[in-house]
């Protein structure tokens, strides 16, 4: 009788130790699930944030979807792995058997403890297992209390922080961070890619131009609407996806699109491309010699704050894209650039053109304003503001990364002194065309 009680006590101790092992294994399994899931979620969020900062909307959307799918799949796999690691008593005994080299003693005792077999060797098995209990103490079977998976979220955090710091270091663009996004932009209509305004976007720009340019703008807008109507559904879906991705990027990066200051857009007459102004979409700004791609990106960056106060309060430096009709712009009251000593006179503007990095436009834009109707006779003076009207312009930057919170690259203003062989550009004096040459000139310009 007493021997039976002793055997039961030994059996209870063996089972208790198996239970302790099971508890420890399950604790580690829970930690594994928790830490690994945390690492995956942090990693996914970090990747999406980095993509929102650094990539254009469509690429961002693609990356975000891929990362989301990956995170979901990884989470499912982690749950399954954690469930596999979780131990029922049988598995805990099997693990202890394996790690303590007990050759199935624990698993056998556990399996038959409820209904011990009528074997004469059962007491021997219990006693034998009990004498080996030092080998299957929980601390020996599983010495760890904390799962090694705790390093996973820490490593992910460190990596993401390092990448963010590196990006911040590389993005220290002095021109942009000092001045903030521009509020006044002068653009060449020929360099603008115009598309119908999204009704969901409020009008946030005032356009100033001479009547001819405005008419060209109207024509171009009509053409854009016509093209937009003829676009296939995939293109429309791409546009919607782009807009969705853009708004998602805004949300991810914490931007507030409503805080964008209104843009004063000063349009100049379109340079007539060889195929005609309305013969197709406007050439990309980066394709023209001397034009930086951003020179035609007139959409103001949607991150006006960006942690950098604008120089001079709300007044942002105007951007000239490319100024080729300075006297027209002067008539429209082009404000001078802050810090610029020019007085706004045509001569000053011409000087600014030379110094602003767009000097090469002078040669390439010589045909701008070559409207046959304007060729003959003196240009009519336009009263200030008389022909300005407000319209919504959906001007897309060529570098789409700029709309996703990443500031567009704005070349620093550099003034290069002219050498002795150079003269500042001056507007050509208008003169009347000789009568005999008029049919020829008219035929050439109407071609």
């Amino acid at each position, binding site marked *: 009788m007493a021997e039976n009680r002793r055997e039961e006590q030994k059996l209870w101790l063996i089972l208790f130790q198996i239970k302790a092992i099971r508890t420890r294994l399950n604790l580690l399994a829970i930690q594994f699930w928790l830490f690994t899931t945390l690492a995956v979620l942090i990693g996914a969020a970090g990747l999406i944030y980095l993509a929102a900062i650094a990539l254009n909307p469509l690429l961002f959307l693609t990356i975000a979807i891929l990362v989301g799918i990956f995170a979901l799949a990884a989470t499912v796999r982690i749950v399954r792995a954690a469930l596999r690691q979780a131990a029922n008593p049988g598995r805990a005994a099997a693990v202890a058997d394996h790690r303590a080299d007990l050759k199935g003693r624990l*698993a056998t005792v556990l399996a038959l403890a409820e209904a011990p077999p009528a*074997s004469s*060797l059962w007491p021997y098995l219990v006693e034998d297992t009990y004498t080996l209990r030092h080998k299957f103490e929980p601390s020996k079977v599983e010495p760890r209390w904390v799962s090694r998976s705790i390093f996973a979220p820490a490593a992910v955090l460190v990596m993401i922080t390092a990448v963010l710091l590196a990006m911040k270091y590389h993005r220290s663009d002095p021109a942009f961070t000092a001045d903030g996004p521009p509020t006044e932009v002068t653009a060449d209509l020929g360099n603008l890619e115009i598309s119908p305004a999204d009704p969901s976007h409020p009008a946030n720009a005032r356009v100033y131009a001479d009547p001819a340019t405005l008419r060209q703008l109207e024509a171009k807008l009509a053409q854009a609407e016509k093209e937009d109507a003829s676009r296939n559904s995939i293109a429309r879906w791409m546009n919607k996806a782009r807009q969705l991705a853009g708004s998602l990027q805004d949300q991810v990066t914490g931007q507030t699109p409503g805080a964008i200051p209104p843009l004063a857009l000063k349009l100049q007459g379109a340079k007539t491309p060889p195929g005609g102004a309305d013969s197709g979409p406007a050439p990309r700004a980066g394709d023209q010699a001397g034009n930086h791609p951003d020179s035609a990106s007139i959409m103001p960056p949607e991150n006006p704050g960006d942690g950098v106060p604008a120089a001079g309060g709300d007044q942002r430096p105007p951007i000239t894209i490319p100024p080729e009709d300075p006297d027209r712009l002067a008539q429209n009251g082009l404000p001078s650039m802050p810090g610029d000593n020019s007085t706004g006179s045509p001569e000053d503007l011409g000087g600014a053109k030379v110094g602003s990095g767009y000097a090469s436009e002078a040669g390439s834009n010589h045909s701008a304003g070559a409207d046959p109707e304007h060729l003959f006779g003196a240009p009519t003076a336009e009263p200030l503001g008389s022909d300005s009207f407000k319209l919504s312009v959906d001007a897309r930057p060529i570098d789409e990364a700029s709309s996703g919170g990443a500031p567009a690259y704005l070349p620093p203003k550099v003034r290069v002194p002219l050498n002795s062989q150079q003269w500042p550009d001056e507007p050509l004096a208008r003169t009347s065309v000789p009568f005999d040459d008029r049919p020829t000139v008219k035929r050439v310009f109407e071609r």
Partner: protein
Amino acid sequence: MSDPELGNGLAAQTTVTVADFARIFRRIQSEIHKAIVGHEQAIEELLSALFAGGHVLIEGVPGTGKTTLVKSLGQALNLSFNRVQFTVDLMPADITGTRVILSGADGRREFSFQPGPIFCHILLGDEINRATPKTQSALLEAMAERQVTAGGVTYPLAPPYFVMATLNPIEMEGTYPLPEAQLDRFLFKVRLGYPGEEELVRIISATTGAPESPVEPVFAAVEAAGAIEQLKRLVREVIVAPRIEHYAARLVRATQPENSRVLGDLHSPIKVDAVTRYVSFGSSPRGAQALILGAKVRALLDGRANIAYEDIDRVAPAALEHRIMLNYAAHTDNVDAARIVEEAVKAVQAARR
């Protein structure tokens, strides 16, 4: 000269401990090794089959010590031992015994049963595949039922009854391969290969010089049978967990081409391609019995009262190889049963993790 500390008095003991079993087993092994050089695994499997209560089929080329092994075993166990050389003209009555007319002192004549060589504790059937199937099948009843029926009278065979049959894998002309039913009655099939160089040197020195110390019996003659029976009962007492029984069952099913999808502990199906491709008939349920019984002996030898997975894996080749019938594709591709068992064990091992 039996060992008083080991075999003597064992039959009188009420209980035999696990330590006793291992000690006696090792002692018998060492005695046999006085006559046999090498073949450690073969000797262990032979003794395992003896204590598991089964019979052994020994396959080996001539001169590898098959007969010497069996003789030394009989000497070590101090049990009655007979040897029958199977030939093509051997008749069943030549081994089971026959009724003969005997004249009594009063002149009366009566039939009397004269037991054949099958009546012993240890029977060696040498080159059993040279006898006709009729003679081979005469062993069936003796092996399975441990009794012999002659002239309508059944004669029990004294326990322990242990049959060891040898097969010569070469010189197959004029032989009669054992039928599957008879093969299945052997618990283990033990292979005796050629000895290595060191072993061969020891064989040369041991057999061409002065005779070395002879094999000494481990048990006293009167107690030997009882002691061995007690050890056999101890083997039956070894505890088997249900998962081990399932493991053995899965392993046996893995050798059957129609059941070669093995269900593991995680219920993940595993297909044994080699079985599907090369096996005509897999192991019978006797294979599972052989696995468990052999594993029980292994557990006792390791000082355990329970079977582990490793015990099953260890005895699987000896227990299953001769129960697997290969098809022509296996012969064409030079695939043997050993490889089939190996693949099945691997598949079941993977499924148990």
